[in-house]
């Protein structure tokens, strides 16, 4: 059973058990434009909620991606190094950024479900 939640900074989290797969939303990739480079966190790094975890760069500008929850980075998406444009073509699928082990599930309380996120970006 996967639950998908969203942050106000336009990240999505697909949560299975105590692991969240994190990426940026389709709305975010549209705002960024053509993505040419993605910098991912190091494996094993313990991210604090709201700290800069990854960087996504378009032709024009660099944008930070923040850790939506506190936890250890378990896996990063190697496909993004070879093909950053995946973020534009499949932001909420193949272009996931990293998997994080959720340290404190209570942090999920402040996140939005799909309907709330849709209202947030409307």
């Amino acid at each position, binding site marked *: 059973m996967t639950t998908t939640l969203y942050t106000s900074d336009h990240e999505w989290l697909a949560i299975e058990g105590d692991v969240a797969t994190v990426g940026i939303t389709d709305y975010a990739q549209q705002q960024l434009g*053509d993505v*040419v*480079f993605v*910098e991912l966190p190091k494996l094993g790094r313990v991210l604090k909620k709201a700290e800069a975890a990854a960087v996504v*760069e378009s*032709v*024009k500008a660099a944008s930070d991606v923040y850790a939506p929850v506190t936890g250890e980075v378990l896996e990063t998406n190697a496909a993004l*190094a070879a093909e950053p444009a995946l973020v534009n073509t499949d932001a909420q699928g193949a272009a996931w950024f990293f998997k994080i082990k959720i340290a404190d599930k209570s942090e999920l309380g402040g996140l939005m479900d799909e309907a709330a996120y849709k209202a947030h970006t409307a």
Partner: protein
Amino acid sequence: MLAPDQDSLKRTPLHDLHVSLGGKMVPFAGYDMPVQYPAGVLKEHLHTRTSAGLFDVSHMGQIALRPKSGKVEDAARALERLVPQDIVAIAPGRQRYAQFTNADGGILDDLMVANFGDHLFLVVNAACKAEDEAHLRAHLSDDCVIDSLADRALVAVQGPKAESALAKFCAEAPAMKFMDAGPHKVAGLDCFVSRSGYTGEDGFEISVPAADAERLAKTLLENPDVLPIGLGARDSLRLEAGLCLYGHDIDTATTPVEAALEWSVQKSRRIGGARAGGFPGAEKILAHFDQGAGRRRVGLRAEGRAPVREGALLFADATSAAPIGTVTSGGFGPSLNAPVAMGYVPTALGALGTSLFAEVRGQRLPLTVAAMPFVKNTYKR
């Protein structure tokens, strides 16, 4: 400073067209301008390099310098008091790149100067145009009437198919060479056409009466080879072409020699030339020609894929604490599929092939001083 609110932004005569084409509008130099269209920066950039792009550059200033004597040479001599270029030698129907300099040898603005036979035609940067005009009025009013052509729009058509796109509407266009410039009819409209641009590609810039601008742009866009291009791709194209952006790569604190623009200062204005000196900051600029400048604008290529952007500090090695320079423009070059940048470094570290480092998000990324343009230009000489 307050952020400019949308209502106070000026609009070019093509504003409605940008909106109807789906342009994403952003504030730029006081104007509401399209940063990109639905195609996006990457496609717009690559389309310009392989086909043709149409750019609205109407925010730039267009100024006619009309000699009171009726002789264009008098306007040229007068303008030489403000720029280190040989303006007298610009033949009728030709154009040249120039800079307004200040008393310290810095650059107040860069501009194009064309000889239209009985007057000079200047194109200056949007952000500087009011100051440029005041500067011209303050220094040249005895010799020239300074005529601000605010009722004209400016459209650029750039890329390998620019010539064929324009030829249908301007029979003289194909015969023009790089930096030819003059009044021509385009689609029956009274235009000034120059074979030049800001992309490194062959192409044209067309000054058109504001009232006719939308008609001209729509006519050119009927050609499927021609796509509208926003400011985002304009910047990545000029960066790959190694061309300076005023306020970033050149400013009041950089001399033309530091900026690696020696090629733009003709021998006649240098020491030993027929009209050496006689422009603001001549002492410092000519000293830089004679003895060299301490720092220099250079091209930079990164080893990795991470773009190195404006403001990144440069270092001589991976560990030293003191920066040796700064990146003044940088980003991703879509045609190279790699990051490109330019910046200022001590002249001793400016030789091609020199290894340097840029600090990006706390990491030192290796860079190499590289020749510019990064992408070979295709001017029709």
